[in-house]
């Protein structure tokens, strides 16, 4: 039996914010910590390195909220990437289902449905992050082009996928009217 057990890291986020230089990484760490995010400075794997040997590990699910905050605070970064090598790119494709008077647009795990005639959002479904029920309440009953954008008020990858669905829904609706 080994005398010493390898200590598991206290935080496993699954995502890395990558930078061009150490100063940018230190600034981002400060901004994110002040906002209450759980993060840590780590060395990125050589395959992901973008000029700086320091990265900020984040909970990848929080990518949209973190990118928005860094942009608002003028904290430059190169990109956010999954820390596991071999992870696919973020999904860009959508699927569309025609229900007659309504259309449902699906992006990854998120779906948004609207009425063709009025452009009113009648439902959102799918997902599992805590901002999704909030966005559901905020978006239903609003017109597609007047509803709050999930990427602006949500914090998670579920919200980002709902935003993709909203984008496509707006394109479809504007094409039909």
């Amino acid at each position, binding site marked *: 039996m080994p005398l010493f057990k390898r200590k*598991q*890291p*206290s*935080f*496993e*986020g*699954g995502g890395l914010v990558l930078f061009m230089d150490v100063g940018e990484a230190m600034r981002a760490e400060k901004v994110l910590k002040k906002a*209450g995010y*759980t993060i840590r400075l780590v060395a990125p794997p050589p395959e992901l390195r973008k000029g700086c040997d320091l990265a900020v590990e984040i*909970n*990848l*699910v*929080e990518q949209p*909220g973190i990118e928005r905050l860094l942009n608002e605070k003028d904290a430059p970064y190169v990109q956010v990437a*999954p820390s*596991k090598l*071999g*992870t*696919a*790119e*973020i*999904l860009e*494709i959508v699927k569309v*289902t025609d*229900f007659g*008077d*309504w259309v*449902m647009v*699906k992006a*990854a*795990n998120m*779906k948004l*449905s609207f*009425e063709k005639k009025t452009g009113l959002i*009648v*439902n*959102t*479904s*799918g*997902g*599992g*992050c*805590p*901002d*999704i*029920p*909030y966005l*559901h*309440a905020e978006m239903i009953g609003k017109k597609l082009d007047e509803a709050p954008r999930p990427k602006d008020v*949500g*914090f*998670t*990858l*579920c*919200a*980002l*996928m709902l935003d993709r669905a909203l984008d496509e829904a707006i394109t479809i609706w504007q094409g039909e009217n």
Partner: protein
Amino acid sequence: MLLIAGTVPIPDLPLTIGKVSLNHAFLEIEGHRIPCTQGTAAMISAAAVTTNYLGIDPPQALLAGDTGKGKGSHELYEYLIKNIAEICPQTLALHYCLPDIGLMRRLCEAVTQYAQRPVMIADAASMYAAKAAYKAQEFDIFTPDASEMAFLADPEATHPAYIARHLFNTEASDIPELIKAAYINKGSAKHLLIKGALDYIVRDGEILETVSQPDVPQLEAIGGTGDTITGMVAAFMDAELEPHEACIIAAKANRAAGQYASTTPATSVRQVIEHLPHIFKENLCQWSGVCYIEGGKQ
């Protein structure tokens, strides 16, 4: 006792634990009123309707307000890790939260140290966290939809937004391949109820049954109709049905309630839940082989 843990989109709701009751369009818990909408509230509502019909104790809920910043999710998981042995649930159903790999690992470790292991059910982001933390096999039941099934089948993905494109593009007929991949990759719980045009009930990688009728495709568009299935599964598990029976009955009841409500994509989940008691009364005896008198076991 059935404990359902998850977040609700009420920013100032403190961490709250207690029995829930249904009051029209609201859940009531410890003096708080929570609207019955998509997410944990829909799941609890369906579970409460089911336990009420079966005449068993109503679900307990552990709730925290969270609109995406994660504070409520962290408090909820930390509370569970610390108190799971004392709470002592027979069935633990984990639902909406900010998925956190480290906290999910710690919760699973806390559960294994607790002598009376509960039936473990996960849906929504708690399922994402369990898979990403390589703890899927410690769960008894997951209830994914087709895109979430692709996520469970992708060994590298930590969220459905990052699944491989070819997996997202799979058709309904490819679900059996995703099931195989998820079991090989250890991304699946022991049982799966895969929600879709055809619902699959799976045990250890083997498809036990499919449910296709009544066909109500509009249900997919309605926020919360997956949550209602998981709520019913949790309630039936607490009534000591076998996992595959709980899954089959929940899948059938959800479809039947959707049909009875004459759903469109604009229907609310509450309108579907309202019909569950009638559906149970009409069908539960036949579906389960065990007949109940409303409000008490026969």
